[in-house]
């Protein structure tokens, strides 16, 4: 069992962390171009019994 799975991450989260490390290691101008592909603006709201769970 890989160390990150033992820590509770799944592969998506693991590769996202690795990608962030790669982006930070880049030099300009590639760094600023890559920074545009980073970040997540979405909001996930769980639903239960036909209604959204308000937090």
């Amino acid at each position, binding site marked *: 069992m890989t160390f990150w799975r033992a820590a509770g991450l799944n592969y*998506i989260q693991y590769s996202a962390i690795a990608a962030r490390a790669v982006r930070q290691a880049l030099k300009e101008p590639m760094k600023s171009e890559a920074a545009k*592909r980073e970040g*997540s*603006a979405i*909001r996930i*709201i769980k639903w239960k019994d036909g*209604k959204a769970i308000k937090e």
Partner: protein
Amino acid sequence: MGFSKFLILSPLPCKVICVFPSPSSKRSPASISGTSTPSTSSHLCRDFLSFSLSPAAHLSSSQCIVGHRRCSVCQVHQDVQPGDSSRASTWAAAAAKYARAERELKPARPYGAGAAAFYDKAEVKALEDKPQQVIVACSSDRGLCGAIHSSICKHIKAELAGDASKAAIICVGDKSRAQLQRTLAGSIIAQVGEVGRKPATFEDAGRIMTFILNSGYEFGSGKIVYNKFKTVVSYDTLEMPFYPSDAINAGEKIALYDSLDADVVQSYMEYSLASLMFYTLKEGACSEQSSRMTAMDAASKNAGEMIDKLTLTYNRTRQAVITGELIEIISGAAAV
């Protein structure tokens, strides 16, 4: 009997109507000495409104009525004028966003093609003992794009028409949530908001799929319903299937692939879920922008036609009002 000079002087110097009725009672309007037609109809309105509001006591009831008629005509013109300038800018903004979406779709295609090819070659099928499925409705928050969102929701509703108990729906985008929550609210397990304003990133796709994996919902198969971009004027509503790792391990031709163990299959399954979600988000965004552009184009063409028709009506009405006014003045003066 004398005749009276009947002078209407507007407060603004650009328009003066002087009427000199002759002794003979009936005189054609051609005898009017001079009427300078206003350069724009707005001047006409302003003149007339300021005249009709002035304390000048010469206002007869007929002039008031004509004033009201003129005001309603001017209202139409004022409503119609702003539409002209805003037409070009909305279409240009939609075209710029579409160009960007298409540019970002090109490098996203291999993500979808690669993962789909794996499932295809290994002949992975849905597990029979786990009929539950996850359906992701890949739409967005923003409207005015034609039938984009409704085609996805129609597809899902048709699929779940018989039996919605064995499906869990994730609504990516407010538009799909609004349409699906009416009849399928019991099957929705999550909604994803703030989709569509900024271009989707791989991290967005990863978060959605992480949610599915951690939700604890045991599914035997899943699908993403999305709009695949064909051309600027057309798109297809398709399904992109995905499977959990025990379905992959049960795939018939899985032995084709070397050195697969449970860990690798699990990791690849998770990664391919994120890749497929990313691909469908990019395809969906491109279809949506192209559809919005065509919808805006059609809307502005319709608006343009309406503006032309209304302008003709406005001009005819204006001329009729002026003619009527002149006739009333002439006949009124002639009666004095």
